[in-house]
């Protein structure tokens, strides 16, 4: 095999535990020519705001960005489906020369008249600033004329990384928060943040908190509604999942409205339970909440425990690789895989920061490889070196795993299977089981020799 070398500029973004002192760099722009698995600033904004189902999402630019993000997430809505449409100003050469403001204005007016949304988000793509379009003023004008919030999202692809896109989305959301009435808000209310209702996960989580006796004011942004976001500043607590995407908004809301936040994850039994207990602990003036929480956790675990035991028996000792968008998810994955008796030998993320990677290092066993903003060659290299049985990642990593005869579990935003909560843990175990132990891998060339065929006939 031709050896896979690591680009010199990327060496410090890869760390193997135990071998050397921890000296990882991260939060860098991707290296030109290294095939990063990251997308761009626009992608960051688009994924965060996407699930707001009663808003118009208009992408201002040439057609590509809108085409590639049409109906891209598995984020469910209990009502309107406007978020699943792809709207674009579809800029043409003459717009590049003469500017696209007029087209943007006309597009907004037309679409708002057609769909009657409760708000509109206008995403600036790469060339918008360069051709000099002032989208802020167009948004202000349309907002005034149409009487709904029209929010510019400054998500020009090249102006940073995906993380900056999260931030731009949070800035846009921050303009909505605080513009609605907060009368009749319960003392025990909270906002669920960084939960996008992939396969209905936000509904599961919401139900848990409601069973604990809490009121969910708004979900950012799963099954999201403009009105709920407007009134979300009435909540007493923000619970933030998914490290990168919504922390910025939680911090804004803490500063502006004095709402504290806690960080949680809903993946795996351990982290799911912690997410409930931490919230119960926050509302500790009401002992009833903790009592209900204990009961809920006990009941839920009792239901899934036999299944987990069954899968653990089969999956014990298998080796896994994790490559996810935000590092926070990787922490949960490590724990969840351990629950199944599996060992994580490669862990990485697109957007982790130094603290994230330090925590990853502390969680992992010696020999585990930790990667930041990896490329397909690096991921393959370590999958092979570490003899991985399972890869947990997104669509872009899937064919790489399969080519090498490695099982795969989709843990990204396109999936259609709920992996959050207690039931999600069982689904996760099933997903892992159905890929790792599938008989098709007997035909993978890396498992040498033919089982069928030769001499199998009778004469």
């Amino acid at each position, binding site marked *: 095999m031709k050896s896979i070398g690591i680009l010199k500029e990327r060496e410090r973004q890869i760390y193997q535990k135990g071998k050397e002192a921890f000296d990882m760099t991260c939060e860098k722009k991707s*290296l030109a020519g290294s095939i990063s698995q990251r997308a761009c600033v626009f992608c960051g904004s688009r994924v965060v705001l996407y699930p707001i189902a009663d808003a118009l999402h208009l992408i201002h630019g*040439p057609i590509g960005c809108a085409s*590639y993000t049409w109906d891209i997430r598995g984020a469910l809505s209990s009502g309107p489906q406007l978020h699943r449409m*792809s709207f674009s100003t579809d800029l043409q050469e003459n717009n590049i020369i003469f500017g696209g403001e007029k087209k943007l204005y006309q597009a907004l007016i037309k679409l708002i008249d057609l769909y009657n949304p409760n708000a509109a988000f206008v995403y600036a793509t*790469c*060339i918008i600033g360069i051709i000099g379009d002032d989208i802020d003023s167009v948004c202000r004008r349309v907002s005034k004329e149409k009487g709904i919030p029209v929010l510019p999202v400054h998500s020009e692809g*090249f102006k940073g990384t995906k993380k900056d896109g999260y931030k731009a989305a949070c800035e846009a959301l921050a303009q909505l928060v605080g513009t609605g009435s907060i009368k009749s808000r319960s003392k025990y209310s909270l906002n669920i943040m960084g939960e996008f209702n992939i396969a209905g996960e936000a509904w599961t989580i919401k139900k848990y908190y409601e069973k604990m006796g809490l009121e969910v004011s708004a979900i950012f942004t799963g099954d999201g509604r403009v009105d709920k976001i407007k009134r979300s500043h009435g909540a007493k607590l923000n619970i933030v999942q998914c490290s990168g995407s919504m922390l910025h908004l939680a911090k804004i809301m803490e500063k502006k409205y004095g709402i504290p936040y806690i960080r949680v994850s809903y993946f795996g039994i351990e982290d799911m339970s912690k997410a409930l207990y931490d919230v119960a602990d926050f509302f500790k003036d009401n002992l009833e909440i903790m009592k209900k929480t204990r009961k809920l956790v006990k009941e839920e675990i009792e239901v899934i425990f036999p299944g987990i035991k069954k899968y653990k028996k089969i999956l014990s000792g298998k080796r896994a690789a994790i490559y996810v968008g935000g590092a926070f998810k990787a922490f949960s994955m490590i724990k969840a895989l351990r629950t199944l008796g599996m060992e994580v030998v490669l862990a990485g993320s697109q957007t982790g920061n130094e603290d994230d990677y330090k925590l990853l290092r502390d969680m992992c066993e010696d020999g585990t490889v930790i990667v930041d903003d990896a490329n397909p060659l690096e991921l393959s290299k370590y999958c092979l070196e570490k003899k991985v049985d399972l890869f947990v990642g997104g669509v872009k990593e899937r064919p790489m795993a399969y080519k090498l005869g490695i099982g795969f579990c989709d843990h990204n935003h396109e999936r259609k299977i709920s992996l959050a909560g207690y039931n999600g843990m069982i689904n996760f175990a099933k997903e892992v089981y159905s890929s790792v132990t599938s008989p098709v891998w007997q035909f993978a060339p890396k498992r040498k020799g033919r089982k069928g065929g030769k001499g199998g006939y009778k004469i």
Partner: protein
Amino acid sequence: MKIPAKEEYTPTQNACKLCSPLGASFVFKGVANSVPLLHGSQGCSTYIRRYLISHFNEPIDIASSNFTEETAIFGGGANLQLAIQNIIKQYEPEIIGIASTCLSETIGDDVGMMLRDYKKNCTKEKQPEIVSVSTPSYSGTHIDGFHAAVRSLVDSLSVKGNKKAKHINIFPGMLSPADFRYLKEIFDDFKTDYVILPDYSDTFDGPLWTEYQKIPEGGTTIGSITSMGNAPASIEFGRILGEEESAGKLLKKRFEIPCFSMGIPMGINETDIFFDALEIITGKATPEKHIKERNRLIDSYADGHKYVFEARAAIYGEEDLIVGLASFLSEVGILPVLCASGGKSGHFEKKLGEVIPDLKNKEITILDGADFMEIGEAVKTANPDFLMGNSKGYKIAQEIKKPLIRIGFPIHDRLGGARIIHVGYRGAQQLFDTISNTIIASKQDASPVGYTYM
């Protein structure tokens, strides 16, 4: 009947087109030992990779020069150089295919000049070939990016040698890997050498690996592309392409190589033209195997003609694909009541008129430059029995409760998009069986009797 252009501006809703760098990426993935490089933001290459991976289920590495704010102000030269160097270090390619993006085009980056500078300053002896194509996403669609990249490869690499070569050049356009494999089989059966450009039949539809392949095996070699300047003839598919500057026409102009331009060979009529051209160029008769394949196809047309007669089809996709499909549907008695495309070459209606007999007097709606919102509206009016096109029309089919027969690109909601054969007698056979059975199944499923005979 062509719908007149809209008077009032309506933004694009659910586009029926993709941007031109995607088409160029297809082509550069179909060259041996090649790495495509998009000169623009990181997102362009990642989105396009994801879009292609969801269709082909193959690892598809496309590099990016990864613009920053500074790059956008001072130009992308330094990033482009760094990207090229890093690709060489990691992938050791024989060729790097660079496609521009809306960003690099808008800031006015002259990639050609940057490459000349790069080559001038390059001290290393062994450098890969570097070919670039201009693909601003604000002009044209993915199919324009595809043809432009093919043309760029030929423009940069093909030369006229001393001795006339024997191979035929073939430019099939954006077909499936299975189409490419079948076309190569036809040339092999004619016992004729050929150079097919691009050729992603292996790179987009390959086996499992024992070891990681940095660049999947397969693709048109640089040597083959070079020798295209020496061929006795070229064949290009696409009646629309026939009206445009193409690689085939460039070879004709530059090296006087005759270019046999024809529609995508879908159905018997269009495929006969292709085989006819092959006979003329090679001086050989069509091999028996293919005549038999044609005969069996006609036999099946006879068996199935009543089931499909005057069935109504709504078809959408790239203009050339739709012209080919309309030709095939018309020859079996199916009425393509809606022919729609996101492309807007200006030749769509005329070319449809060439393949649909008596088009003017038929109740057929033609839409170009259309998005799926307009297509959806037109479908409701056209009241088809089935839809045919890529998977993005599924919601329309679901809404009117009519089957969607998936062809072309992308097919994101089913397996096997790479293995659909669209062209030739074999492709027509597969499509005909699929269509007939879809119609028969619809009737059977709707019947309370549930006959087990047709």
